[in-house]
């Protein structure tokens, strides 16, 4: 090793492009500038300087890094540092509204939360008081029905794609259509459910089951995609071993493939539920809004959390304040449910499939 290290040193003087140690700005000073910029940003939001000015100030401070670099290190390194600044800026720009959203919902929604808020409906409530019990019940029923419709269809379609299709042309086409179906706008799903139910129940139909159908249209492609990924991860050796023992194909799927992929499938279904539970537009069209608890999905309007939040905020009545406060409470409840579902999905996949990881 030592000899190979020494040789270039001997050769160096003869080389026509001698290696030059490039100048660098010390790493410590870079961190000092980043910290200062971060402080300026925080000050802007905390004090009455204002977020915009704080952001501008922080950016100017941080911009001194590429400027210094241009003077000391040259153009290429300065460009590199400038792009780093841009990337960090993009990150900050993305994070600020997201922090603002979460903090607003918690700040405005939390004061409303009480046991009365969760146990009472809006029936005969004018002004203060009332709650979201009817909306929670509606959301649970409609989302539950949507899950009952979507999971068997989605799971079996995924089984078809992975176990039976043998990568045929049909399978490719189907996969493609499922991908395209993922992009159906939620309001179009709502209109579809309305157009379908009008055929059977006549003009102006509103019912919980329609909402479940609309949500299923949105949920099925998500379930298929995630289940398919999970079924693909099951090693082929397991299937072959089972076939070799004379186990029929369907029992192999039922007893070997599905149990192996179960944790992943449950994770995918949970995420799919989290995705559709917050859907507002289709439910606004087909499930509508009401003030009382309705537990019959085949009869009449059914309130849901997102639609409740929407209508309480947009049509608050007089005086508007209590209604808007309830809207924030409903929004916070919804947000907590979605976050909890995501966390559950994360935990399931972390506990049951340790080998899968990026």
């Amino acid at each position, binding site marked *: 090793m030592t000899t190979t290290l020494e040789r270039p040193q001997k050769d160096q003087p003869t080389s026509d492009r001698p290696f030059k140690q490039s100048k660098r700005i010390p790493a410590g000073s870079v961190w000092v500038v980043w910290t200062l910029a971060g402080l300026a940003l925080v000050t802007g939001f905390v004090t009455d300087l204002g977020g915009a000015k704080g952001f501008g100030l922080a950016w100017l401070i941080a911009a001194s890094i590429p400027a210094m670099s241009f003077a000391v290190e040259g153009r290429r390194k300065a460009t590199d540092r400038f792009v780093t600044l841009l990337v960090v800026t993009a990150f900050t720009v993305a994070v600020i509204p997201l922090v*603002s959203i979460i903090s607003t919902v918690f700040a405005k929604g939390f004061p409303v939360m009480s046991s009365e808020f969760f146990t009472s409906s809006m029936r005969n409530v004018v002004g203060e008081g009332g709650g979201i019990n009817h909306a929670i019940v509606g959301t649970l029923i409609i989302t539950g029905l949507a899950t009952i419709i979507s999971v068997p269809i989605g799971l079996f379609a995924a089984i078809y794609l992975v176990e039976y299709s043998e990568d045929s042309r049909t399978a490719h086409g189907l996969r493609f259509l499922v991908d395209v179906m993922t992009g159906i706008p939620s309001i179009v799903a709502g209109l*579809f459910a309305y157009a379908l139910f009008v055929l059977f129940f006549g003009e102006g139909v509103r019912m919980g089951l329609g909402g479940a159908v609309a949500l299923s249209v949105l949920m*099925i492609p998500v379930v298929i995609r995630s289940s398919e990924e999970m079924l693909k991860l099951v090693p082929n050796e397991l299937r072959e071993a089972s076939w070799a023992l004379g186990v029929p194909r369907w029992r192999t799927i039922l007893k070997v493939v599905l149990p192996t992929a179960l944790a992943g499938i449950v994770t995918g279904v949970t995420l799919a539920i989290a995705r559709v539970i917050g859907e507002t537009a289709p439910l606004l069209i087909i499930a509508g809004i009401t003030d009382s608890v309705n537990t019959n999905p085949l009869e009449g309007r059914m309130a849901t959390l997102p639609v409740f939040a929407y209508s309480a905020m947009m049509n608050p009545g007089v005086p508007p304040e209590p209604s808007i406060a309830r809207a924030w409470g409903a929004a916070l409840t919804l947000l907590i449910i979605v976050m909890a579902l995501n966390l559950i999905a994360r935990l399931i996949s972390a506990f049951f499939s340790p080998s899968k990881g990026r």
Partner: protein
Amino acid sequence: MNKTIQRPGDTIFRGTAVAAATTILVTLAAVGIFLTIKGIPGMTASPEEVKHGTTFLAYVAPLVFGTLWAAALALAIATPVGIGVALFISHYAPRKLAGPVGYVIDLLAAVPSVVFGAWGIMTLAPAMRGPYAWLEDNLGFIPFFAGPASATGRTMLTAALVLAVMVIPIMTALCREIFLQTPRLHEEAALALGATRWEMVRMAVFPHAKSGIVSAAMLALGRALGETMAVAMVLSASGVVTFNLISSTNPSTIAANIALSFKEASGLTVNALIATGLVLFVITFAVNFVARLIVTGPNRAKAAKS
């Protein structure tokens, strides 16, 4: 395959799987067919029979414009930011930070749209009043900022900003996946040749990710086109066609218009609304179709090559 004994269990199971797969095709077709059946009376209805009092074409044209305009604005804001955040997670952030940040971004993609809408109308719109007045005073010569600046802040630009905030997590998640798939050897080769980090990204990561970025942008566009509640809540719309971003008269979008008008609609007006929904379906279908073609096309070719 042909010589295996066909057990009844197998036949049933296979049949169920095929039936489920067929359901997908039937559903997709049914969405198109039902919207068409219910939409055609609305398209052909005479102006006197519907609430909006115009022919369907005159009704839907400003809405299509508003939909495309809002989505394009949102995409123009979200694409650079989304790529930046994805790069931050995949190549710039310290590894310990990148994991949690990626998880939080995934979480945010799941935040319900009504929450974004509520934030847009209650927090963002009031906060934008000052900047809009400033834009009108200082940049009013540009048609986009001609004003008069909205007193409520509920303008096209606010709606586009909310849409951008909504699609940034999606853009980020898709781009991050693509950036992480860059062959490690290409990156290391670039660095070994003395490239700075940015030169490495430009020479190794971006060429590899080009088609992926385009399709991510298209998918985000599809999402922005169909987004309903945020626009319905934030935008104060009046069915005009204008490029003015900061005034209080704005074109509505198809989705928001359906959500706002459906409750009070009856008779042929409902059919007209469904017909606008069909137009939206066709637009998003086309956008998603092209996006998926971009994704599968080159990748398949690449897989065949290697």
